[in-house]
């Protein structure tokens, strides 16, 4: 039993984090929002150069052969920078295109992918995507019609026409649900940091507002909500990589904690900022809107909680039909 990321995994994440500090400041995120594209082309090219989109592609197909445990720390950093565009979708979906004509370009990022659980609703990032991956199929050549979207870095569009080809997408739904959870952990952590920074700077009654207990307690609780989602996200990644039968429940467990934690962090961060946080000018909303936009992505909190509940309270869960409990930790064996 060893519950820790390797130094290499940590170093890769730190490297990505450093790159994003320079290449994805709020000004870059705002530019992607303001031109209606939800796209940051220069940043996209840098992330492609870094090899990010080849992370999960098997070595036999020319990729890095990484797993979800490798990916989740990176995805957290992408969330922490409120990175615009389908970076996470591209990272998760690229390995599915092995053997298709799109494989090499998807890995390089020169062909842009997005992913969606359904084609019947507006698809995030569809306006800039060349290929749309959905459960069991890929779609090319469709026409995207933008629709107004809450998160300008996640512009939605409806799709018409195009060619649909069957594709084995495996556990795409669980991988994306976990990727959303990892993103939300990063988004939430940044909001806590932003609000703590603000609480040190903003003075009222002759002192920084962070000296007041009401403000301290908002932020302490928000930090706790974020921190207790990190280990479940890591564990679910490991379960997916190991192909465990509990992986779907583990993903949903992590998703519930990450999403509820991020909602709490958004509210606390807004409250600590006060009126300035309620403006377009303040950067906080670049993160807050990602929380709200992602709430229903790849299953909402309620559906994920019930997926755990179905497993827990009936059927396959840790409680036997005659009511005897089997201990929770048997999951870990």
């Amino acid at each position: 039993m060893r519950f820790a990321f390797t130094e290499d995994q940590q170093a890769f994440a730190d490297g990505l984090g450093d790159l994003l500090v320079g290449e994805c400041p709020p000004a870059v995120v705002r530019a992607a929002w303001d031109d209606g594209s939800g796209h940051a082309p220069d940043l996209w090219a840098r992330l492609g150069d870094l090899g990010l989109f080849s992370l999960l592609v098997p070595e036999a197909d020319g990729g890095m052969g990484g797993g979800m445990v490798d990916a989740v720390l990176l995805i957290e950093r992408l969330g922490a920078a409120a990175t615009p565009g389908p970076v996470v979708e591209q990272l998760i979906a690229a390995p599915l295109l092995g053997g298709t004509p799109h494989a090499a370009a998807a890995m390089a990022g020169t062909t842009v992918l997005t992913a969606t659980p359904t084609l019947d609703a507006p698809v995030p990032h569809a306006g800039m995507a060349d290929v749309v991956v959905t459960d069991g199929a890929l779609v090319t050549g469709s026409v995207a019609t933008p629709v107004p979207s809450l998160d300008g870095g996640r512009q939605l569009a409806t799709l018409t026409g195009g060619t649909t080809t069957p594709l084995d997408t495996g556990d795409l739904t669980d991988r994306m649900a976990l990727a959303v959870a990892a993103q939300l952990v990063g988004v939430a952590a940044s909001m806590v940091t932003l609000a703590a920074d603000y609480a040190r700077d903003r003075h009222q009654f002759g002192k920084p507002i962070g000296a007041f207990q009401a403000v301290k307690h908002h932020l302490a609780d928000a930090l706790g909500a974020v921190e207790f989602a990190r280990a479940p996200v890591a564990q679910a990644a490991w379960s997916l990589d190991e192909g465990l039968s509990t992986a779907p429940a583990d993903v949903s467990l992590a998703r519930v904690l990450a999403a509820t934690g991020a909602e709490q962090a958004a509210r606390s961060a807004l409250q600590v900022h006060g009126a300035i946080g309620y403006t377009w000018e303040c950067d906080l909303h670049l993160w807050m809107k990602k929380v709200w936009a992602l709430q229903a992505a790849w299953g909402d909190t309620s559906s994920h909680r019930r997926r755990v509940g179905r497993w827990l309270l009936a059927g396959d869960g840790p409680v036997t039909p005659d009511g005897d409990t089997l201990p929770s930790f048997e999951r870990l064996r």
Partner: protein
Amino acid sequence: MDLRYTDAQRAFRDEARQWLAANLPTEPLPSFDTVEGFAAHRVWERTLHDGRWSAVSWPTEYGGRGAGYIEWLIFEEEYWRAGSPGRVNQNGIFLLGPTIMEVGTDEQKARFLPTMASSEIVWAQAWSEPDAGSDMAAISSRATLDGDHWVLNGSKIWASRAAFADWCFGMFRSDPTAERHRGLTFILCPLDAPGVTVRPIAQLDGEPGFAEIFFDDVRVPLDCTLGEVGGGWRVAMATAGFERGVSLRSPARFTTAADRLVALWRLHADPADTALADAVTDLWIRAQGYELHTYRTVTDIGDGKPIGAEASLNKIFWSELDLEIHALAMHLLGAHAELTGADGSATWVKSFLFSLSGPIYAGTNEIQRNIIADRVLNLPRGT
């Protein structure tokens, strides 16, 4: 990352499970906050010690197994799953013991740890005073030097287990002229010393889980000083770190409580009440979250990354989780929840009452939030 237990860890779990199955009392013990229950729990601790299960993570020379933290978590899982008795000497084994190992002299380790592991000596904590609760640095009980002895005067209150325990530990003001955090010394004191008076205090369940301890010219040899004279605050913070961090409340208590909540839901709930099912599921999820977080934390500790002020996050999380699990259990019990006899709900009601103390003891959750804000988030100190 490898979340599989090793073969040795599985064997350790099997050994613990088999030992508990063979040695657990067949009937639940009376509460350890009663005379007969305290005695019965001391006997149980002796049995645990004879099997070398009372302090599994301690070095073998002091009565432990020298086991790692993961093994300790495994033991705790087996212990609580089996419905084992509460740990009457937890103030010693989980709080003071690790502190003695960190700051005690070799002589103190040899003198205090083996009798602690065997519960020949059961320890009470003596943190609070009538005018020093959350503001612990306001302690005014005095320790005055007289030759090779301290002379203790003053009183401590809300001292858990002190009604029946043998020794207590706490801080005393040894230098009234020093800045308030600096004039404190951590002292160990026998509760049968001349001048000690113990006044039991009934807790919410009616039993004397607390006591007030009065010190009237109590003479304690200087070798009962833990750490440096005037260094009591630092020693106490080490103890509090263990308490709030992982040692006092391993996740197994809460995952076990959450599993039992699920069993209770199956007995009493209308499955059509989806809000109730969601609430049970949510608490179970949070208990798992705490467990996973702890496995990550102990891996970090094993890698030499000490647990710092983040321990306060744990304390808030487990205490609020425990309270919510038990509050929901009370709802599930319905009309049975006001029956405190032996009709099956007594155990839930008693543990519900105990769970209410979680956000208060070991430093109130408001104090924990201040610590997180000041030391983790680096917010400015309040005035």
